[in-house]
């Protein structure tokens, strides 16, 4: 690999960026060479997203220089950088759902394309060039995430991009879709296009990145050709400490039945019943939309579901809303952190304390000193990285935000903790800490219901796994002794329930 040979397309020198109370980037320097896939890894909050947003023009840098394709870039807007040949494909793809594929690729440039006929013809050409067969007249809302990514890549190519930044592109891709993406990446590389590939997944980094940059706490820790990194070295540099295992050892203190759920029936769920035991981590495995989230929402009283029976510790309980669920000893980390978990304009402290307001209220009045103590306690015990507890939670990274939600419930101390995708978009270090917490809850005699799209996570953490397909429970497995593919078959509705 002649990483030193090719010409530098993007040179970032000593770039700093601060937000009120947070130093997001601290003199960052990176060189990206032509035709290379440049991996950027780091925990959430390491500064990757901030750096990319500076490159695309969403943020302005405080100091430092950026030279792209021979030209110094000072101020820029997302639109200008696209035209300059620097494209970003965000995790939460930026497409207009109600428009067609072709229209999305040439959005705002129909005139240059000589009308819709030219637009669709040129779009076809671009899509073909990366081997994507989707019709250009199809609405984007009907596409899978993977196909949407192809559309985004075609859009980037339509601007003659010289550098394409991909921000966590694999988050919602299946294995097959992923190998297609890898193929396209190789193809782009062969055309001399550089790619910055941001990811948490080390497999991907080792699979196809040429050069890897590790970032931590707003600094570049190291940049080396991939071959010179070992896996352990990479992890150590990312988290700044050594992590021996990705998962803690399974807890083994499963006791008697803690909760019994009988007969959840909705339009989507069909007679869902199961038991949960003390000290247990119960995994729910299924495709997105199979009914995993609906099941836990029904139990938690988040959706209007009636007719099922829930008993906790042998006593029947009525849960018609989340307040009753909380009082019955349940806690929930919801699926969508931003929309369902956080109150973004509010402070870290207020976000942590919001489930336990009763605990620092006397005669209707808030005791602010007690609230401060609650906030400080969980920031400390969970190692939440924040300048202080008064900053708005929107200034924190995803992993730290998630820890705040965990802290919110730890204050209540629920005996049954429901976690819906608790580690989505969170880095290795924070993930491990959340795993340890799960284990701790279970070992203290509580129980955890874990939903995750990452199969290894569920299989390694759970004592027992239920598979859900099309609103029905299709199997119950001991993940320690049953191979993953058997469990996956049940989750895909292919039979084989034990």
């Amino acid at each position, binding site marked *: 690999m002649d990483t030193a040979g090719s010409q530098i397309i993007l040179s970032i020198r000593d770039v700093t960026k601060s*937000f*009120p109370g*947070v130093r*997001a980037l601290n003199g960052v320097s990176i060189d990206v060479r032509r035709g290379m896939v440049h991996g950027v890894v780091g925990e959430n*909050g390491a500064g990757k*997203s*901030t750096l990319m947003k500076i490159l695309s023009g969403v943020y302005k840098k405080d100091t430092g220089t950026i030279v792209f394709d021979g030209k110094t870039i000072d101020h820029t807007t997302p639109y200008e950088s696209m035209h300059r040949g620097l494209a970003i494909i965000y995790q939460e793809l930026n497409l207009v759902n109600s428009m067609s594929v072709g229209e999305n690729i040439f959005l705002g440039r129909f005139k240059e394309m000589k009308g819709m006929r030219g637009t669709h013809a040129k779009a076809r050409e671009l899509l073909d060039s990366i081997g994507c067969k989707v019709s250009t007249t199809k609405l984007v809302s009907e596409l899978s995430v993977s196909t949407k990514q192809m559309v985004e890549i075609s859009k980037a190519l339509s601007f003659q991009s010289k550098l394409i930044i991909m921000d966590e592109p694999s988050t919602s891709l299946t294995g097959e879709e992923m190998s297609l993406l890898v193929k396209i990446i190789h193809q782009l590389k062969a055309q001399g296009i550089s790619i910055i590939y941001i990811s948490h997944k080390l497999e991907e980094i080792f699979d196809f990145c040429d050069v890897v940059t590790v970032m931590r706490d707003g600094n570049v820790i190291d940049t080396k050709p991939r071959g010179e990194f070992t896996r352990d070295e990479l992890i150590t540099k990312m988290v700044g400490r050594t992590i021996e295992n990705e998962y803690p050892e399974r807890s083994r203190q499963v006791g008697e039945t803690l909760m019994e759920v009988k007969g959840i029936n909705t339009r989507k769920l069909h007679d869902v019943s199961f038991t949960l035991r003390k000290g247990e981590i119960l995994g729910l495995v299924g495709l997105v939309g199979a009914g995993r989230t609906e099941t836990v929402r029904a139990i*938690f009283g*988040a959706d209007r579901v009636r007719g099922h029976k829930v008993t906790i510790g042998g006593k029947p309980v009525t849960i018609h*809303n*989340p*307040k009753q*669920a*909380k*009082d019955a000893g349940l806690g*929930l980390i*919801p699926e969508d952190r931003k*929309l*369902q*978990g*956080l*109150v*973004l*304009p*509010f402070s870290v402290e*207020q976000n942590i304390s*919001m*489930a336990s*307001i*009763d605990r620092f*209220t006397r005669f*209707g*009045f*808030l005791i602010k000193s007690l609230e401060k103590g609650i906030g400080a306690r969980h920031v400390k015990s969970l190692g939440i990285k924040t300048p202080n507890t008064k900053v*708005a939670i*929107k*200034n*924190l*990274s995803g992993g730290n935000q998630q820890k705040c939600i965990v802290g*919110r419930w730890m204050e209540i101390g629920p005996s049954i903790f429901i976690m819906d995708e608790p580690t989505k978009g969170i880095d290795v270090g924070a993930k491990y800490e959340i795993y340890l917490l799960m284990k701790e809850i279970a070992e203290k005699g509580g129980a955890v219901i874990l939903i995750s799209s990452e199969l290894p996570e569920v299989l390694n953490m759970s004592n027992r796994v239920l598979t859900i397909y099309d609103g029905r429970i299709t199997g119950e497995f001991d993940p320690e002794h049953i191979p993953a593919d058997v469990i996956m078959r049940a989750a895909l509705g292919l039979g084989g329930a034990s």
Partner: protein
Amino acid sequence: MNKVGFILKDYLVLLMILGLALVTAIIQPKFISPANLNNIMRQFGPLILVALGMTFVIVGGFIDLSVAGTINLVAVVTITLIDPLGQVGALIAGLVIGSICGAINAGLILTSGATTQAEALFITFGMSTVYSSLALIYSGGSTFHFWDLKEMPNMFEAIGAGSVGPLSVSFVIFLGALALLWIFHTKMAAGRAISLTGGNKTAARLSGVPIERSIVLIYTIAGFMAALGAIVLFSRVTTASPVIGAGFETNAILAVVVGGTTLKGGKGSVLRTVMGVLLVILLNNCLNLLGVSSYMQWAARGAILVFAIWLDNRKEVQGNQL
């Protein structure tokens, strides 16, 4: 974003108030005459009370267009109850009716499953017309005057025109309401729940915050404060007509938003609303003194509202980090 810029934006309203007052005082010295200042203090009365109630609705993530209808209804019912119930009885009845109007709004919003500001806007707009027509039906379209009553209602006269030391009675009522509402919002659990409801209804609900209670509270407070505003208003003009509240809903929303409480919900304060009302009233007063036509004044008010919303959205863009 530098700190100076943030502070400037946060206190822009205050700076605008000072600037406006200064310019007017220089051009038209009558502005700082005791008569005019007294006039401003009295104008403050009804609008600020309505706007303080409206602050809670907006902080809670909703909006209330029904306050105009509530004022109409409370004004005509209260004044006609003075003879049969006595002054204190009529006052209490008026406040209760206002609160009930608010609670009905909340009930409709909850039972209809409305969750957005837009839905609340239309529901309360509908209820405003209902309350207004009730006022018209009840009054038969006629206007009631203090001098038609069996005897002069001296308590209401005092509310409208009396003084406590250098302050007007309506100003004292305002100070009392402000103190209570400020304590309620910033020091009490129910006030915090309202802010959280406005900040993110879903997240608040999933954390077991009683958002239904918040919705009932914000609309009941808005109804109560509208009723208090209605009483101060008809006491000042010694007359209650069934259309006396027209325009109060938009002026109250204007004052809240101009004060810097975000229409997005969650963040805001009754103290900001005081600044907003001050600006709106000063603007009217100054433009009057400067001889600007009332048509132009409407345009100025509209422009200020749009500017305030623009400013709020700018803050949002810059606060959007990571």
